[in-house]
């Protein structure tokens, strides 16, 4: 069995973290570019290779039609859901997409879970390079306000990346785990989480018991379409308008220049978190430069509508448990966007206390995911997370109304039983429509699944079918039905209305996972071979030098033996064997290395007096 990690699959950036056994604290793993943040950007190069992260982000400017960002906004959603998104984001959605959205990257089409799986796979690679061991299990975080379809899509992405998803954990809950471990907080905690594309508010109760610490989520609320991206969009729209007015240049919001401008504006936004004013210098296609001085006041005025939008869900989350802002013992800020001074000020004013910002808001969710991964990996622990379902589960009743069967903020796992019967003689099926949401009419709620209960022919009203709806610890729905008269169980496959079906997942898996399993071993072999080659070259160089004469014959024979053994292993495909032989050669050449080193030092010092050194 491989290692288990925690992953924050974010709208803007994704991270991978693990629990460091030595320090007992979670740690984020840096990627090849030194940063722990992997931009959630995926690009398909003309040769058909998938490029993820920083290099893909660079391609946003050079190859925008082959590159996608913010794909999280498409997870678990249908074509009709994303019309607003399409106006603001350069998603090239395949018009023939029916239930599942397909996005065009160059000449290929991918679903949102597939694109997310590329990001997950990249993070998996980072972790495997870090551990030198395979990684096959993960806890992945999702916005607390994600619905069933969005959760299922995230779980599918994990599967496609070759990861067993041990648990989907809500992002604010994960953040509170990280803080709880760090600060030893107790009492009522409000977690305000403004990410790139989603906003979540969670109210938790941290309880110390004899068995350990319990993190009990009391209520969550949020908006899955509100985030830092919206701030960037406002800024961009404002500057587009300015450029149009002053320079009469109108460029498509999806083009190369727009991406360049967006990048500059994000940098400007970050500057304004640190200082009171910053100037934009932007080269225009007509050779002129657009200059504009932004003050923090201007930025605040521009983004206030977005910040104000976050307060309504906060009030709702508190009202659901009849709590008042001033009752919170702690307030925690999560998500890079919360670095914005206006947000900090607004949150502080609302709760009447200074929010915690000790942990890096970009990393805190991944750190919490690592804590939960560690808890699950070990099976039993002194920490327990009790989460809730963010949205009410309901069934469509007569006239398109919704009968709620599991109210929002119910602790999960949660279940409900409903009894069904027939309305006409010899009816053989009963249609069930499951919905999620707070509205009273089915058309205003999120359609989760439709299925038909099989009924044996009988007079109307006689059959009794008991249907059990169960929301598991991941917030995902399971349905089971039983004929009460015969005791016969019915298997019901519930796939979200906008999700991938099993056959589609199976096909995608065939395309990706199997060769990915080889991937790890292959990569390890390549890396081990490269290392073997460089050590073999260094050894033969050292042996060829005159200092090698100082090596005793017996030792020389040992080195030759180790060299031969290593060369032999390089021809094989067993990276563990190559590593072992590398270690053996390293061990055999310890004395040789010392001799070479000493000689190198004395050569360097030759002709120099001690005083010159």
């Amino acid at each position, binding site marked *: 069995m491989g290692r288990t990690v925690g992953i924050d699959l974010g709208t803007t950036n994704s991270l991978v973290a693990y629990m460091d056994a030595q320090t007992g604290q979670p740690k984020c793993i840096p990627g090849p570019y030194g940063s722990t943040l992997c931009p959630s950007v995926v690009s398909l190069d003309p040769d058909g290779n998938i490029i993820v992260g920083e290099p893909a982000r660079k391609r946003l400017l050079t190859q925008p039609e082959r590159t996608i960002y913010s794909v999280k906004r498409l997870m678990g959603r249908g074509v009709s859901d994303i019309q607003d998104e399409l106006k603001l984001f350069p998603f090239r959605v395949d018009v023939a997409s029916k239930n599942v959205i397909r996005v065009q990257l160059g000449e290929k089409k991918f679903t949102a879970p597939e694109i997310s799986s590329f990001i997950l796979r990249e993070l998996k690679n980072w972790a495997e390079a870090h551990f030198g061991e395979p990684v096959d299990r993960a806890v992945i975080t999702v916005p607390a306000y994600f619905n069933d379809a969005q959760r299922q899509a995230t779980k599918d992405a994990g599967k496609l990346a070759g990861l067993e998803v041990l648990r989907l954990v809500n992002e604010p809950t994960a953040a509170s785990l990280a803080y709880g471990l760090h600060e030893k907080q107790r009492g009522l905690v409000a977690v305000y989480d403004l990410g790139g594309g989603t906003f979540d508010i969670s109210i938790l109760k941290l309880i110390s018991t004899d*068995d350990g610490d*319990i993190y009990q989520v009391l209520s969550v609320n949020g908006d899955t379409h509100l985030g830092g991206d919206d701030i960037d969009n406002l800024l961009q729209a404002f500057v587009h308008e300015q450029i149009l007015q002053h320079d009469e240049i109108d460029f498509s919001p999806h083009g190369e220049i727009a991406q360049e401008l967006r990048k500059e504006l994000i940098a400007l936004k970050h500057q304004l978190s640190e200082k009171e004013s910053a100037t934009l210098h932007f080269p225009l296609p007509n050779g002129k430069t657009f200059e504009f001085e932004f003050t923090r006041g201007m930025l605040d005025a521009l983004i206030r509508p977005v910040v104000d939008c976050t307060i309504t869900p906060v009030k709702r989350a508190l009202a659901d448990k009849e709590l008042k802002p001033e009752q919170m013992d702690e307030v925690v800020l999560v998500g890079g966007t919360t670095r914005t001074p206006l947000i900090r000020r607004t949150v502080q004013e609302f709760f009447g206390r200074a929010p915690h910002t000790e942990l890096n808001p970009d990393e805190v969710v991944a750190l919490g995911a690592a804590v939960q991964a560690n808890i699950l990996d070990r*099976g039993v622990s002194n920490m327990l997370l009790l989460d809730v379902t963010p949205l009410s589960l309901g069934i469509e009743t007569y006239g398109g109304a919704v009968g709620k069967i599991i*109210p929002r903020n119910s*602790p999960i796992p949660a279940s409900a039983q409903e009894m069904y019967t027939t309305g006409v003689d010899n009816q053989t099926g009963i249609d069930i429509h499951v919905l999620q949401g707070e509205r009273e009419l089915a058309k205003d709620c999120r359609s989760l699944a439709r299925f038909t209960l099989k009924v044996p022919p009988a007079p109307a009203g006689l059959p009794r079918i008991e249907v059990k709806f*169960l929301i598991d*610890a991941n917030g995902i729905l399971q349905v089971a039905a039983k004929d009460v008269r015969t005791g016969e169980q019915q298997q019901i496959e519930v796939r979200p209305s906008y999700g991938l079906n099993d056959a589609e997942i199976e096909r995608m898996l065939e395309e990706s996972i199997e060769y990915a399993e080889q991937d790890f071993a292959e990569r390890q072999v390549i890396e081990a071979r490269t290392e073997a080659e460089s050590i073999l070259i260094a050894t033969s160089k050292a042996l060829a030098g005159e200092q090698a004469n100082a090596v005793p014959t017996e030792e020389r024979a040992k080195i030759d033996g180790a060299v031969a053994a290593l060369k032999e292993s390089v021809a094989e495909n067993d990276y563990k064997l190559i590593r072992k032989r590398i270690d053996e050669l390293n061990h055999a050449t310890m004395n040789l290395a010392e001799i070479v080193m000493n000689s190198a030092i004395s050569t360097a010092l030759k002709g120099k007096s001690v005083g010159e050194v």
Partner: protein
Amino acid sequence: MGSLEQKFLQLSWKLHPDNFVNASEEEQELSLKRSSELNDAYRTLKDPVARVEYLLEIEGERKEGEKKQQAPPELLEEVFELNESLDELREAKSAGLELDGMKARLQAAEANFGQKLAEVDTEMQATARDWDAAVDAGADDAARKKIMARLNEHLNRRSYIRNLVVSVAKELAEA
């Protein structure tokens, strides 16, 4: 911390699926089933109304989904007035008339029925305590049935008033 919550947390430690990630599939299934039952029970018992509903259900005094929608006699007059006001508001709205005066009257009615809802909740809690006392004292079936009937009556009254409050609030929100 109340004893209900304490018991809930204790059992959560034992049953939560987090403890069974590495266990057999059978154990995982069982943990999912048991922890969902625990959570459902906690949810029901924590909410005073759901708790009474559940009690009446297990005592066989109330069938699932059964709700009487008759106006309690002592409220008839007020309910009649309220419905009239609601009709007037709807008519005025469709005719595009000034609504402020009618809204104020409905808001007063909303507050009035809101208060009645609070009253019936208080009464129901008192009766629930009577029930607990009767059970503790080992009261006979007849005595229990009597309390049960009162609880049932409170519950019906409550659900009727609650529907009124909700419909008024909805009408006001749309006006």
